[in-house]
């Protein structure tokens, strides 16, 4: 069976290392530290799923992307969203994009973002690493759309 390719975009190693340990031969994990690195990773081949951290406060300010008029704190706090926006045009439709953000307090927000990234999902607080990996691996084939959203991903 082909190993799934998963792009992990984070400013630390929390997700990539932990996932590597449990993924074994089920997935190939590629780590990117900012939007630019993530773009380069996409140049190197397609991914089955993308995992995005949200807060990026460990990389220099100049590597943050987004509207600088909103201030650095805002950009760092929500950098994952800006990276997702930057990657969106380059991702095949229905690529599963898991954002490490709990949308359960504002489900409409997830719906709004799905207009641009139909395969976007949230991550409910308290989700374990095994469950996260399972969701990243449950990538649909590129020919078919994602299963209906009622499957729990809406709650993030």
């Amino acid at each position, binding site marked *: 069976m082909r190993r799934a390719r998963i792009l992990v975009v984070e400013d*630390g*190693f*929390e*997700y990539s*290392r*932990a996932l590597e*340990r*449990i993924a074994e031969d089920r997935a190939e994990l590629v780590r990117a530290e900012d939007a630019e690195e993530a773009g380069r990773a996409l140049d190197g081949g397609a991914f089955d799923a993308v995992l995005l951290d*949200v*807060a990026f*406060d*460990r990389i220099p300010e100049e590597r943050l992307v*987004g*509207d600088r*008029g*909103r*201030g650095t*704190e*805002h950009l760092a*706090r*929500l950098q994952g*969203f*800006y990276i997702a*926006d930057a990657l969106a045009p380059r991702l095949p439709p229905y690529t599963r994009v898991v954002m*490490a953000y*709990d949308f*359960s*307090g*504002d489900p*409409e*927000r*997830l719906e*709004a*973002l799905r207009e*641009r990234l139909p395969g976007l999902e949230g*991550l409910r*607080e*308290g*989700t*374990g*690493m*095994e*469950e*996260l990996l399972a969701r990243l691996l449950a990538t649909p084939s590129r020919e078919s759309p994602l299963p209906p959203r009622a499957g729990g991903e809406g709650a993030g």
Partner: protein
Amino acid sequence: MRRASPGLTLALLAALAAAQEASAPCPDGSEDAAALSRQAMSLLPRAGAPPQRSATELARRLLRRGRRWGATEHDVLLAADLAAQAGDSDEWGELLAEAADREGGALAPLDWLLLARRDEARGDYASARGRYERFVKSLERTDEDTRWVGPRLKQLDVAARAASVAAPSASAPPPEARLALADGRSALARGDRKASREKFEQALRIAPGYTDAALALGALDAREGRTAEAIQMYRRALAAEPDRTEALVPLSQLLWDEPDRAAKEESLALLDRAAALRPDLKPLLRQSAERWAQWGDASEALKRLDAWRERVPIAERAETDHLRAELAQRGRAAAPAPTPAPVPAAAAAVSPALDEWKQASVYAAQHDDERALERLAIAEKLDGSFAAAPELAADVHERRGDLAAAEAALRRSLAAAPGRSSAHEKLALLLSRDPKRGTEAAEEWTRAEQAGSSEAIFYLAKTASGGRARELYARYLAEAPGGAHAAEARASLAALERRRRGALLLGGAAAALAALVAGVVAYRRRSGWTVEAWLRERPARAHAARPVLGRLQHEVLKHGGLLLRGAGGRLAASPAETAEMLSGRLFAGDGVKTRGLVAEGRRALADLEALARADGRRLNLDRDALFSPVVRGLAAVGALEDPLRRVRAGASDAALARATERLDRAAELLNETTGRDIETMLDSIATVGVRAQDLCDLLERVASEKSVAAPPVAITGLPGPGQPAWRARMASADWETIWRNVFANTLTALSGVREPRVGLFGELVRDRVTGEPSLRFAVADNAPGKLTTEMIRERSADRGWGVVAELLHSHGGRIAVSPSVDPRYAKRIIIELSAAPAP
């Protein structure tokens, strides 16, 4: 004696006029009333002759002199007619009333009617009622239709009762007063009564009719044994809001403890009023029954006791069987029923809607809901800012079971006067009735608490758990020791304490428990602040605390959850490998790029404590219901360092099992507090309600402060009355600073414009990239002159625009200027800022 009709009198006057011309009579100096009357009569014209003014005046003078010596009713009425003829309506009315007050037998039906209307116009409704009745009586044997008088008398009764209705407090206190009250409550929470008294007094100086401040000071006075002052304060609170249960109940208690009979009578009436106003507070009814029994009126006591027994479960009823039997045996007691408590004199509230509201109050009390709502609709039209009108309408709707209309009315009331704690309380109680709207109710109680309601603290305590509930109950008892819920709060607090002690007992020996309790007591004495209490005191700090808490949420709660959930199982399955991974992730120090969870968590908590310290507040996270699980979770994770090292080195099965168990326990602790809990807490403190009316009011205040007329404002999109407010993520002080500066600059720009116009547009949008809800406003005006985005950003802070730009920027918002798309305006200023998601 039958009095001459007005027609005949006029004819006489006319007839006498001619004779008067020939011989100008003079008073002969006699002081005899009858002689003076005869003299006056001689001056009046004969029938058919036109009256002559000088003769009429002379006759009136003669009759006036005669009244000093005891004029007859006939003469008084004659004088009244002459006064009417001369157009002297004041004297006419007085003379007619004088005649009526004697026997009145000579008064014509029309006189009674005129007198009744005069009394009515003067607000003397009791007298008017009597006159109307005489009017009807005088027409008894005629064909005259007097059926219209009955409804008229009912209206009179309403007007009479309305006159004694106290005016409500119509608006919310200004922010300065609310701030002072909040400071006072914070001081009270940390036991500084002197400071709290100063702050409560300051709040009352700023807003003398501020009920919540008077309640707070009254409670403090009561606690310190200053009974007279406490009574005075509670009376002051009732003067502003006569139906406030939190004033009625403690005042009733204080008066009951007074030695004099009148005070006890008033106490009984106050408690009855509280029980009638709040049927949901069943203990009030029982308390009232017990007081009446002590008063010696078994009959009244029995009525109340039976009413209470009907509403409570059988088990509770049984507790009072003995009392009931005793009361039934005593029967009617000799003690006279006390007089109803007078409605306190109201604070002056000058509003064109006041009279309509008063009449509506009477109709509402008579359960004539249609008329009450009719009057209230008029009141709202007359004065849209008169919040008491929709609030009363809500009471009526709620009684009729139309909860949707009641809710809409309460929201209108809050739109008219945001921060009116009584309306927040009512809305929260209303929402509590729907189990599906518990979250909304809790949020409304939070708003009520922010507005100064002590009752809200009690209800928030009821929905909280553990340490948070204990803290809130204790606060309620500190702020309202004699409040309507004091007994229940004490019982709940005691039960919580018992539960806590029980839990402690399970964990250790009695001696250890005693030491622990002593330690807890000592600890509590010097305990610091919870994060929530600190931020409530300094809401503007929430902005700085948000990123720190965000870090804690992200690095510890979210990443910790991912890492630790199921880690126990993995450790058991592959001990050495998992232990190595966990050690790296949990304990990596500051020197590496990815700090360990423990270091991240401790750093975030230390930053939080540092922020509070900068405000002079020492946080005590161990007693903070929200953050103590995080602290304990981090400690539990920290304690895993050695066990994991041992597992890496190949520990025994027992050691591995212990490490696994401790790992799961740490995961559980970190799972107790969620990022959403933290967000909810922050949003309950550092968001401000956004409504069209608030912004209009602020514009008017700024215009008034600048001594210029507020321009007409066209509003589009913003929440109006009855619509839920948007919530901007910003402390109210910052919010007000922004809009004050925006409006002040707009007004300055408009000075000299002949027909100034302002348009205020608002919309709730989502950021295209982040999906965050944000508020977008456009302030358009027709002021000449150029203003660009760059000019705003470059302006120094003292010019106002700089302040706005800086504040918005620091809150992740932005400001821009663009030409208006609407030809009526020259430009528009676009403001965007972050909003809290809808509840």
